[in-house]
């Protein structure tokens, strides 16, 4: 199977994630879309690793996973905390950071 097809898949997944981040309001869904984008990147990295025949991309993918896991911990904690105070998971309700 042509490894370039994985790149197309990665691009597709990234786009779905990006559009999701832009159009959805639920913070949990938003978060999932971010994860989708990260994993799309991981897929692309692994694919490039395969294409170039070295392991650099795979190593970076591991790093990304670790960082994403840490990010999820912090992010979910924030979302839960926001939900507790504002009784809503909509990101549009947390719009106090403006002048």
């Amino acid at each position, binding site marked *: 199977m042509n490894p370039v097809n994985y790149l197309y898949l990665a691009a597709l997944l990234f786009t779905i994630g990006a559009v999701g981040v*832009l159009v959805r309001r639920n913070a949990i869904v938003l978060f999932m879309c971010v994860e989708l984008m990260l994993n799309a990147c991981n897929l692309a990295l692994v694919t490039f690793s395969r294409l170039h025949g070295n392991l650099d991309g795979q190593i970076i993918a591991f790093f990304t996973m670790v960082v994403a896991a840490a990010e999820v911990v912090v992010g979910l904690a924030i979302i839960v905390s926001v939900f507790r105070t504002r009784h809503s998971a909509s990101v549009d309700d947390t719009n*106090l950071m*403006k002048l």
Partner: protein
Amino acid sequence: MDNLIPVLVAVPLLGAALLLCGGRRLDRVGHLLGTFLAFASFGVGLALFFSMLGRSVDQRPIHDHLFTWIPVNGFQAEVGFQLDQLSMTFVLLITGVGSLIHLYSIGYMAHDEKRRRFFGYLNLFLAAMLLLVLADNYLLLYVGWEGVGLASYLLIGFWQHKPSAATAAKKAFLVNRVGDVGLSIAVMLMFTTFGTFAFTPVFADASKATQATQATLTGIGLMLLLAACGKSAQVPLQSWLGDAMEGPTPVSALIHAATMVTAGVYLITRSSAIFNQAPTAQLATVVVGAVTLLFGAIVGCAKDDIKKALAGSTMSQIGYMVLAAGLGPIGYVFAIMHLVTHGFFKAGLFLGAGSVMHGMNDEVDMRKYGGLAKYMKWTTVTFGLGYLAIIGVPPFSGFYTKDKIIEAAFGHGGTEGWILGTCAVIGAAVTAFYMTRVMLMTFFGEKRWADDADGHQPHPHESPKIMVIPMVLLAVGSVAGGFLFNWNDSFVRWLSPVTGVAEGNPPLNPTVIQILTGVVLVLGVAVAWMMYGRRPVPATPPLGSLLTRAARRDLLQDDFNHVVLVSGGSHLTRFLVYLEGKGLDGLVNGIAALVGGTSGRVRKIQNGYVRSYALSMFGGALVLAVTTLLMRAVA
């Protein structure tokens, strides 16, 4: 004996301090204390004078260094006194005439509730003037110069409850400031050129001037002339003198005779070494003197206020002195000689005018006098002697001293000599006219007395003895002064070691000049008699010619100052304010508005929605990616 010099200054200064700080408990004796201290200073002056006479000519100048005022490396401001023949002359004039004026003021100010303060100011005036003439360097002279300005301000505005007096005091102070700026620039120039401002080294350096310093000397000379114009009320800084008549009459006498206006002539004569090396400055000086002597004389002709007529006359007489001082060595001695005799007769005239006012309910309008000779015999006689002296009738003092100046003016030589001499002769004629006018309108003719504002009828009477005695003494001075000074050339021999003396070469025989002066004198008196003696004087002033009307308004000097300086200045400031508001403020405010407006618009991007921030991040990332790709494609 030498260490008596500081005492001269200290005595009146002590009086001023005591009287001004002593409070009410000195109210009863303040005037006596002030007068006593003035006479004490005169006594010290006389003692120093006789001691000086006892020494040989080259031993006469004495010097007393007191202390170093500002000891800085490369800048030594010393406080020291120098008493030479020129200073001595001034010391005797200031303390002598000043003491007589103190004495007169005891009577004149008897009913004034601020009498103690008045005598304090008079003492301060004497102290400042003595400091001015005794200083051995220009910086200390400047201290005295400013002190004189301060004292004159306080005394002219002594009746400050009158708005006119307060304004006159401010005017005198302001106009004097202009001159003071000149003096300070001159002192600074001296310091940068010669590295010192002590008289002896400055004059020594000035007299061996090179081509390069010649220009600087001219600058110094012109600045000194500006200073002299301010203090001595010479054109173009003359406008304060007429208004200064708002002060009590003894103050006018003091300002016009012994102190203040003589300071300018002193300054020029003292700086003779500088002026001798700066022909341009000398030319400016003679022009100022000639213009002022005619200016003052014309103003004096038109004034109906007796004090203002005398003020015009002072301006004119000081003009003679400045003219003589500008002529160089042929004139210095005669400038000072005229200054001294003028001190006598002008003080006498002013005290006489004060005596007349005293008897006439403080009326100053000569058109409301007339026929006073019968009621005020002493005043009439002393005023009359002063009158004969000022118009220069032989053998009164003005004859000797003014004729010498006229001869010196002709002796200047060339066309300039003719012009200056003619001005001086015309001035003498006009002097004779206006002084005769004052004399006739005040003491002769029929009574034109009018009730004063409160409806009191005037009862002219002779002033008390304490006022008459100074007038008599001054009259004696004005009669005998010129003769004594001229006897065996005593004054010339006395002063010439300081100022130097030279013979002029008048194109006319001195006798011809004397006859000429005599003829114009008779002419002036005759015209005045035709106009004011033979005909009755109208109580309301006639409209008069254009020149008369201009002269009544001081030859439009205030109007000129108003149009050129006041409105010119306010226009300039208004323009500058406009420029500042539109230009500088506009620039600053514009930048602020630009930043504010831009940030107001940019602010809208920060709307608090996570999605929109995410969009901008994606947009940015997209732009970066596209740019990178494009760059690659181009490369």
